[in-house]
């Protein structure tokens, strides 16, 4: 019994400890982001890294998400005879919910995990220590460009996801089920308001920040993991952790923003 209590206390303390460290790291990186000089080259390189890694999977998953949505909505709307609302329902579901969440999950899988592994390897091979010894702030040099790139690219990738998804809906609704093209796009133009777009945008901005933050922090603090994490095994463990944690954070954040903005 006491051992169980001891364990619970231990885990709680460690979790708080880790949360505090991660918050501190974010704060330091924010300071670096707000204060020049910047290194545009490394920011561009990170955007390229996130973008190229994720673009194909975003396009493919966006297409199928849009098609599945249209298929399901068509079936449901058919029962109530309001098929001309297909365009707006599909677009709204994509822009408000599925676009930001799915795009963010894809970025986690493709770029977040790679980012975490990269930083983790830099930690185990003393590259981060070497930076510190050279008097170079790792927050500015390593973390800040990744966070900037994440906050910039995830919204862009999300809008690509939305557009491709709407095309997927078009394929199912108009091309396969023969709905009129005018009806599909007119209802979309009428149904989607600035509010909806803003909600999607806020979500994707937040997700971009959260993904890069969790991925980099998990790798950065690899050596302080509970029970110790070393070498290749440690890197693979924190990478898995980062992916799971990011996915949970995205779904939770999605609910939170939805609840606040609705």
């Amino acid at each position, binding site marked *: 019994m006491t051992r169980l209590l001891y364990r619970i206390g231990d885990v709680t303390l460690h979790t708080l400890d880790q949360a505090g460290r991660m918050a501190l790291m974010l704060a330091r990186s924010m300071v670096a982001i707000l204060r020049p000089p910047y290194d545009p080259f490394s920011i561009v390189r990170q955007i390229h890294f996130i973008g190229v890694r994720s673009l194909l999977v975003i396009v493919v998953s966006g297409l199928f998400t849009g098609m599945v949505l249209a298929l399901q909505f068509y079936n449901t709307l058919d029962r109530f005879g309001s098929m001309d609302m297909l365009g707006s329902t599909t677009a709204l579901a994509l822009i408000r919910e599925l676009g930001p969440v799915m795009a963010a999950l894809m970025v986690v899988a493709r770029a977040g995990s790679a980012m975490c592994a*990269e930083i983790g*390897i*830099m930690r185990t*091979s*003393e*590259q981060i*220590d*070497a*930076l*510190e*010894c*050279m*008097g*170079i702030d790792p927050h500015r040099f390593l973390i800040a460009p990744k966070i900037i790139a994440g906050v910039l690219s995830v919204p862009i990738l999300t809008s690509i996801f939305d557009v491709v998804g709407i095309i997927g809906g078009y394929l199912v609704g108009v091309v396969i089920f023969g709905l009129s093209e005018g009806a599909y796009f007119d209802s979309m133009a009428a149904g989607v308001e600035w509010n909806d777009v803003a909600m999607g945008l806020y979500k994707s901005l937040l997700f971009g920040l959260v993904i890069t933050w969790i991925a980099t922090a998990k790798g950065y603090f690899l050596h302080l993991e509970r029970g*110790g994490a070393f070498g290749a095994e440690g890197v693979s463990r924190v990478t898995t952790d980062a992916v799971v944690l990011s996915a949970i954070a995205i779904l939770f954040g999605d609910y939170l923003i939805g609840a606040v903005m609705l």
Partner: protein
Amino acid sequence: MGNRAQTAPDPVVQVRDLVVCYGEREILKGIDLEIRRGEVMVVMGGSGSGKSTFLRTLLGLKAPSHGQVEVLGHNIHTADRRTRLALRRQMGVAFQGGALLSSLSVGENVRLPLRAHTRLDENTMRIMTRLKLELVNLAGFEDMMPAELSGGMVKRAAFARAVVMDPKLLFFDEPSAGLDPVTSAELDELILRLRDAMKTTIVVVTHELESAFKIADRISVLGEGRVLMTGSVEAVRNSDDERIQNLLNRRPRDAVLDGDAYLRRLTGTDA
């Protein structure tokens, strides 16, 4: 005047009663050491004796659980960020595994400190990079990535990066381990030249006896978490401490072990 400075050089690094732990395990159990201006101090000890840990503590990367480290007159662990940054600009470090940034080419790695701390133009930086790479026989490897180099080449590139700012204080973790005898002898020469030409204070961590005896002004031997002795090469060679002689003569710790006991230990039976 100049003479006096030579007979009583002030300590550049002062270590007092240093205790360092990993979790519950005490690795260093109270180290006192003084490193003087312009000397080559070699820290020796068997594998796992805590040499790298000691170095990381000197660099301010690992916090001690007791005691203190003063570098150039400042406590490196409690100094504010600005002071620590100023200290680190005067220090050069080559880690045991090289620790070159894997995303940058060899040349960019060597240039990194220049880029961060000086306003030199691109051309000057390139020339300085080439000079330092030539020092370690890596001219022409500027554009290669660290992953394309051999272990020994990575070490030499790390050496070049450590000296590119002409630091007052240099730290090397196992500079010659894993290098061929010729290259390793060249690195030793280089260390001595840096000391003589630049008056650099150099701390070398190693378990290579030959190189240690060649470059050291003083040697400090670590064992069982403590300093077994600190002294000149002669003093260490002639020490009658058994643990030091074991290290020097490459004798295994328990050389006398009868066959039966050995078998028992292997099979794990306590008959």
